[in-house]
């Protein structure tokens, strides 16, 4: 063998070893996609407006305090829409002072004055985007913590869609859809608020003829403590004593009095301090435990509480466990809305993979048979190239962590088809050159030389199509695009380099070659 050939042989062996090692054993290295393995696929929209609303409310509170501190008098601060605040009844002489206050303290708000004594603040676009992006990122983080706690292997949790406000969640192998959805979606916003009045049977009873609850307080619904099905209402302080952010831990426990499952939580030092002071100062008052705007219970404060608490309600064991889980993972910054939901039952996925694999094997067998019958010995050459192509394809997929989906299998089959195309193109050209009177050796050389640019052009255009497909892709289509792209690249290597090497190898030993089995 010439030195040149030795280097080529070494390169091919090396490539095959790297890819072969990468893909072996394929059952472990290339995970099956949802469609083949069963699982849950969810697309949801983050209602970022919730977060904008929350930021606006915080700003309203902060602005009120600051105006009082600076003794700028005003009548009301209201926000009718998220990202908009209206301050009315301002002293006209304090216009400049108000403006200066906004421009130094509320940089992300744009002040305008529609009429004397009234100012309107609008959240700047950059700030609005920042809040939205942050909300989606936070939601993804929270969902990830919850899914990890569920113990799902290889979940996908990623931003989705053009608007940037969608999240894609894929839970392979998990089939309790209702539970997964509940855990992902529950906002889990925990607040402990002091009760001013209640429980009462209706809102009107609490309002006592007023139009709205007194400032600094609000009315929240809750389940009746006596076990009756009807709703009750509480008048509670608007500002919570502690919130879910102060939690250190939450776990499912058993209420010893009623022997029912509940959730107990512990607080972080700072929150614990606040909690102790608040409970100390309000002995004998009720403390409402509010979850997602619903009063779960309202125990009377018997003594100062340090850093522990319990949430009771009529939970089943699993509900209590799940509540502890979502409390531990933190509240979602905004509510979620499901937009797309796909579940694949495990045995249905198994049926699909059986069909897909059968189809691949049948297709493969047909092509191999065709190549061997039509091209005889050179057909072996093509078959070897095809097998190497498959090894490279699977190896690269394992390396990139791609999952094998049903369309992905289709992509593999199509790659085989295109690989055969390259070989046929080359072989036919060699035959043509030989008919023109060339010896096998020169015919092979001419054949490969002339066909190179054809293969280059065809593969590059297909690659362009595959990349666009990937851009467009959601889930299955992307899997197809990935396998096709990798397959195309592998194909150029095997059909041009490896196939040529094999021809040279066959002819290498002989000085005079009269015929070629092609």
């Amino acid at each position, binding site marked *: 063998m010439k030195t040149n050939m030795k280097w080529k042989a070494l390169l091919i062996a090396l490539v095959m070893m790297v890819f072969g090692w990468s893909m072996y054993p394929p059952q472990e290295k290339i995970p099956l996609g949802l469609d083949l393995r069963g699982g849950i696929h969810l697309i949801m929209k983050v209602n970022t407006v919730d977060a904008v609303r929350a930021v606006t409310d915080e700003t309203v509170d902060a602005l009120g305090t600051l105006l009082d501190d600076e003794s700028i008098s005003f009548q009301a601060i209201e926000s009718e829409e998220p990202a908009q605040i209206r301050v009315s009844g301002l002293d006209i002489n304090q216009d400049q002072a108000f403006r200066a206050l906004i421009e130094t303290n509320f940089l992300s708000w744009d002040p305008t004055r529609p009429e004397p004594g009234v100012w309107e603040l609008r959240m700047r676009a950059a700030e609005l985007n920042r809040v939205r992006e942050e909300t989606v990122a936070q939601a993804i983080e929270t969902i990830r913590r919850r899914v990890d706690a569920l113990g799902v292997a290889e979940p996908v949790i990623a931003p989705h869609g053009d608007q940037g406000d969608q999240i894609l969640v894929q839970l392979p192998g998990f089939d309790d859809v209702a539970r997964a959805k509940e855990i992902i979606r529950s906002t889990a916003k925990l607040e402990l608020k002091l009760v001013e009045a209640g429980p009462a049977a209706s809102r009107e009873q609490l309002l006592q003829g007023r139009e709205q609850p007194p400032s600094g307080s609000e009315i929240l619904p809750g389940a009746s403590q006596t076990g009756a099905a009807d709703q009750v209402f509480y008048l509670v302080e608007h500002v919570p004593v502690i919130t879910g952010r102060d939690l250190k831990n939450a776990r499912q426990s058993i209420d010893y009095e009623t022997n029912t499952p509940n959730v107990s939580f512990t607080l972080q030092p700072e929150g614990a301090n606040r909690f102790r002071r608040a409970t100390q100062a309000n002995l004998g008052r009720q403390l409402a435990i509010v979850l997602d705007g619903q009063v779960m219970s309202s125990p009377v404060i018997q003594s100062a509480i340090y850093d522990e608490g319990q949430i009771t309600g009529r939970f089943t064991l699993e509900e209590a466990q799940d509540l502890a889980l979502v409390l531990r993972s933190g509240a979602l910054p905004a509510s979620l809305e499901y937009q797309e939901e796909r579940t694949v039952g495990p045995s249905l996925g198994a049926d699909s993979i059986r069909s897909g694999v059968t189809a691949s094997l049948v297709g493969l067998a047909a092509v191999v048979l*065709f190549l061997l019958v039509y091209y005889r010995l050179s057909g072996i050459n093509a078959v070897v190239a095809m097998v190497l192509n498959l090894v490279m394809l699977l190896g690269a997929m394992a390396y990139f962590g791609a999952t094998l989906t049903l369309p992905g299998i*289709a992509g593999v*089959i199509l790659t085989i088809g295109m690989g*055969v195309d390259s070989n046929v193109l080359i072989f036919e050209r060699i035959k043509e050159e030989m008919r023109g009177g060339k010896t096998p050796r020169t015919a092979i050389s001419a054949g490969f030389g002339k066909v190179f640019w054809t293969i280059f052009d065809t593969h590059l255009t297909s690659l362009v199509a595959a990349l666009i497909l990937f851009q*467009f892709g959601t889930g299955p289509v992307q899997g197809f695009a990935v396998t096709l792209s990798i397959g195309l690249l592998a194909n150029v290597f095997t059909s041009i380099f490896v196939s040529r090497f094999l021809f040279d190898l066959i002819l290498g030993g002989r000085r005079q070659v009269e015929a070629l089995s092609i």
Partner: protein
Amino acid sequence: MDILRDTHINWLKYRWYFFSISLVLFLVGAVDIYRKGGLRYGIDFSEGTIVYAKFENTPEIESIRQALANSSLGEVIIQRYDQPSLNQVMIRAERQAEQTGDLDTAANQILDTLRERYQENRLVDSSTEIVGPVVGQELRRKARNATLLALAAMLIYIGLRFEFIYGVGATIAVLHDVLLTLGLLSLFGYEISLNVIAAFLTLVGYSVNDTIVIFDRVRENRRFLRRKSLDEIINLAINQNLRRTLLTAGATFLTVLSLYLVGGEVLRSFSFVLVVGIIVGTYSTLAIASPVVSWWRRVREKRTLDRAKTEAPAAPRAS
């Protein structure tokens, strides 16, 4: 072994036959789409709920229909799905206008009914697909953009590597393939799903692939055979590559056909597009792409001739 040695067919001579065949196929498809009130979109692109239910034994469609009839689901389509031995049923429900709240109401209702009603022939496993209104619209737009983008990218690439008119020829051929296949898709009653879009983009790639192989040979021949007319050169290129075209189309066809026949119901419409696409994509190279290039050459030659004629009498006056 060899098939079809040294063919000398004048392909371009038959261009009007090809155009007529394509036109007829196109009209058949168009009429069918019109008759059915537009293309049928699968759940990916519209909205609604599909439940795939797998039973222990052979399910009875009619009894499922009755079980689901007195529910608030509205019109429900119930079909057997995949091979009979798998005992699968597909149930599709449109989203009800008055339906609010959670997306999965319909799916849960269907599954609960099935579980309740079928105690002996139990529900073994199920899959669901639920698509909300927003997702479907977004996908439709994305699919259209992706296809147009792929076409534009290829037009530019071929235009750069060959001549611009070659890119135009290939693009028209691909457009022809997509339209004919769409018609056949409708004729055979398949829906357009996400997988079908993937198949269409593959078809685009395959068709251009096939066209480039021929154009590449035309380019090569023009370098060696300067005396021959473009038509002769195109015919020669097609004939030279005829065996390759038949063999590769045949081999790819085999793989795709196996997908269509044994790949299971999930891949049926996907592989249908590819089965049709490989035939149409191969055919369009010689029936559409090549005639377009040859026709453009003739138009240009005529134009130069006309210009020469009109300029010739003007010349003396100018001097």
